[in-house]
């Protein structure tokens, strides 16, 4: 009875666009959904550094190198903002990281594709960050306060990511025949996985209805995907590149682009761990965790030593 009442009050707050804050009462399911979603988002930011980090030392100019470094550094920051938001819900950082390392938590499947050429760095900034921005702009209005505030911060930083990627694509597509072919090849490989980033079709997505009712999400997977396609097609046309979809065409009646069916078998294969780079990514994260262990220990030991030193000085003075 009381629980039911609390639920109703909670939903009324959501319906009147009030933000929910960390210490407010919330349904356990709302808390768990948020922890799952925010931590998976955080893992994606962190794992997302790996495919791009692969090209930092081989960036073709200093300008490109500082941009890519700054972008990858931003993604580390985004991971931190998101882990912090999850921690306000009572999750422990070390548990969340453990879930990533033992495979019980997922991260965006896009990062299980390899970065084979420099053009991939352009395609990732343009398409992958572009798709992420669609999602993140929506999440700036999510109902959980700390998550929404983290998103506002992230979105501010994110827009240069897409621009630096698109600039790379412009340079390549206006370059030599080989460069243009590199750009086209990157688009061919990243297009469909980028569309998959928005998740299963609405009819198949089991969490969507509840997440929309709680205003954790404000738009469905299919709405976001359509918005992304509509925004991206003219950008590809400007580059003179061809989107690898024979069914792609403007639908005057709908006022949107129609596009072909997505290969969901591929999507689920990658989610389940059978993508090209799943093992490599997790191995890299495990290595970082293991090799950082002594640093974390040493820093704590040092902090403790400093604390004792200070205390002794105080007692001496007294």
């Amino acid at each position: 009875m009381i629980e039911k009442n609390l639920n109703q009050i909670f939903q009324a707050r959501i319906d009147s666009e009030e933000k929910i804050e960390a210490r407010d009462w919330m349904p356990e399911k709302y808390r768990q959904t948020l922890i799952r979603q925010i931590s998976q988002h955080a893992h994606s930011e962190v794992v997302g550094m790996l495919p791009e980090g692969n090209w930092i030392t081989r960036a073709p100019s200093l300008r490109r190198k500082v941009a890519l470094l700054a972008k990858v550094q931003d993604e580390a920051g985004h991971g931190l903002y998101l882990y912090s938001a999850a921690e306000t819900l009572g999750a422990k950082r070390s548990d969340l990281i453990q879930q990533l390392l033992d495979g019980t938590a997922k991260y965006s499947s896009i990062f299980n594709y390899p970065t084979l050429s420099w053009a991939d760095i352009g395609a990732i900034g343009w398409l992958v960050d572009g798709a992420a921005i669609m999602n993140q702009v929506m999440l700036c209005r999510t109902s959980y306060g700390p998550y929404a505030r983290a998103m506002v911060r992230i979105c501010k930083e994110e827009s240069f990511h897409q621009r630096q990627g698109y600039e790379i694509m412009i340079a390549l597509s206006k370059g030599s025949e080989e460069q243009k072919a590199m750009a086209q090849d990157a688009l061919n490989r990243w297009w469909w996985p980028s569309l998959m980033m928005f998740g299963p079709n609405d009819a198949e997505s089991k969490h969507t209805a509840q997440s929309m009712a709680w205003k954790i999400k404000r738009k469905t997977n299919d709405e976001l995907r359509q918005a992304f396609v509509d925004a991206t097609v003219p950008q590809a046309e400007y580059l003179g590149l061809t989107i690898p979809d024979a069914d792609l065409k403007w639908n005057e009646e709908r006022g949107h682009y129609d596009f072909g069916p997505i290969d969901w078998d591929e999507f689920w294969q990658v989610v389940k761990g059978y993508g090209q780079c799943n093992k490599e990514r997790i191995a890299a994260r495990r290595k970082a965790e293991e090799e950082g262990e002594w640093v974390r220990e040493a820093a704590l030991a040092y902090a403790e030593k400093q604390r004792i030193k200070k205390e002794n000085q105080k007692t001496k003075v007294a």
Partner: protein
Amino acid sequence: MDNNWPLWEVFIRSKKGLSHKHVGSLHAADADMAIENARDVYTRRMEGESIWVVESKDIVASNPSQQEELYDPAKDKIYRHPTFYDIPDEIGHM
């Protein structure tokens, strides 16, 4: 040994003359490291010129379930606002 670094809340003053504002939190072994990490994470684009950090466990917060008893008493005290008082137009700005 529990190797979890404590959690710190970060407050940043965006420019001189303004107050520090909460921007987020981070883990660090001690206060010095918390300041350094906050510098790296929260001021990469000139967002601030002064940083405060405080351990999260030292923050005492009001109870959200006491919303009414804490804040409602101020609602009917409109005489605390300047617009409650009638001053003739001839007097001008006061």
